[in-house]
């Protein structure tokens, strides 16, 4: 009962904030709304006993919001940031995309009988342990590949920022 109430409070908060992200005319407001969405989703993760994921959600995505606000401030070319995000008028295209994604998810859920893991007794601890077992044992190669990809992106960013000296 308590869980259901908490779920609806934070689910509604997350969806309302997401609505704010797309409709806000001020792009900085959009970014702050996005932070609220992330926080709401983090609470939903907690309700699903994925506490590690919830903490990582806050740690990583909140930091991303900071960076996004700075990008918004630096890259906005309009004179006033209050009117910085006016291209939100293409409702038809957006609604079509959203409807397609919704239909896709609904089809997956309705047609596959075994899409969810059968309910098991929750051991009460160790979501971080379980994730580390999966990442560093079962799926070690994809995990390392992702790490290399991120390192490459980092090196690329450094080279782009620093510039390469042309040899004569």
């Amino acid at each position, binding site marked *: 009962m308590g869980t259901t109430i908490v779920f609806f409070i934070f689910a509604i908060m997350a969806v309302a904030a997401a609505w704010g992200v797309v409709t806000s005319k001020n792009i900085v407001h959009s970014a702050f709304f996005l932070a609220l969405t992330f926080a709401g989703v983090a609470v939903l993760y907690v309700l699903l006993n994925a*506490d590690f994921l919830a903490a990582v959600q806050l740690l990583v995505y909140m930091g991303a919001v900071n960076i996004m606000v700075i990008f918004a401030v630096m890259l906005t070319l309009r004179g006033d940031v209050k009117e910085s995000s006016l291209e939100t008028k293409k409702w038809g295209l957006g609604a079509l995309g959203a409807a397609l994604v919704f239909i896709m998810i609904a089809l997956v859920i309705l047609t596959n009988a075994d899409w969810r893991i059968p309910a098991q007794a929750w051991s009460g601890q160790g979501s971080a342990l379980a994730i580390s077992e999966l990442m560093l044992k079962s799926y070690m190669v994809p995990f390392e590949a992702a790490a290399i990809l991120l390192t490459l992106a980092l090196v690329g960013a450094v080279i782009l920022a620093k510039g390469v000296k042309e040899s004569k």
Partner: protein
Amino acid sequence: MDALNKLPLNIAAAIRGLFGDPHSIWADLTMTVIGIILVIVLIVLAALILILLERKVGGWASQRPGPNRLGPRGWFQTIADALKLLGKEDVTPAEADRFIFKIAPMIVFALPMMTLAVIPYGMGMVPIDLDLGIIYYLAISAISTLALLMAGWGSNSNYSMLGGMRAVAQMISYEIPLIFSLLGVVMITQTFSLSKIVEAQSTIPFIVIQPLAFVIYFIAGIAEVNRAPFDLVEADQEIVAGPFTEYTGLRWGLFFLGEYGNMTATAALITTMFLGGWQGPGFLPGIVWFFLKVGIIIFLMMWIRWTFPRMRVDHLMGLAWKVLLPLSLLNVLLTGLGIYIYQYVLRIGG
């Protein structure tokens, strides 16, 4: 002494006993509310005491008396200042982003409240005992960057915005060595739970095994709470007061409460992770040991603030990315090697 040590636990059990079923939802709810109230009292008390202490330490460091007019040796000065703040006008700048401007100080105040709620203050005295205590602490304290940016943005003033930008650059950079320095302790104890980490230090505090991690965390922790020599965010001589420039009265007071709350939380986490938390020789109760250690760390932070000049911004970034980050990675490597050798020796010996 044992009785004194268990006094808070016995009081808690007595309050629970008032309910028919000591573990009913209402008993749990009451205990949680009491815990939260105690944490708020702790933050307000800490701010009242620490602001005065800061000025006294500042006086001591620069060889002047510090506040000395009100009450015995000036000890009532902060109370008078707080009362003065209550009476000030609450000004919102005409061009401010009103909602963001008003909500930012509340977030700044709420965050140390949330982090201090998971610290073990004594044996069995954790307001909310989480399995992922460290990760939770780091996740919550990461939001304070966003709160400072909101204050900087919402004020709609150049100085505030510059302060907010500096806050993001500095706090995101220092978060990385901060998190990596804690990994060594987690590797040794194999747990994220703060109360279990304190229990693991019953024989030897981790500052002895992890001295490098302690130094890294201490430096990065000072940078995270934006204190001198890392106070570029609110550098008075350059950008007035950074994100706090446009705030007045009690809203400005909330920033102050949040700042000293954050400082207390950082000192409490250092105590928990490296100094053995409430563990100590048996002639004092655990909670006294805890606050004694927190006090020593806070005194060190104040001493550093009044001793070192402010860093230049490029030196600040260089320290985080070129010194602290490699050192913290080295610490992780050394700890891993140490654990491996230790297990190998155990296997040979056993």
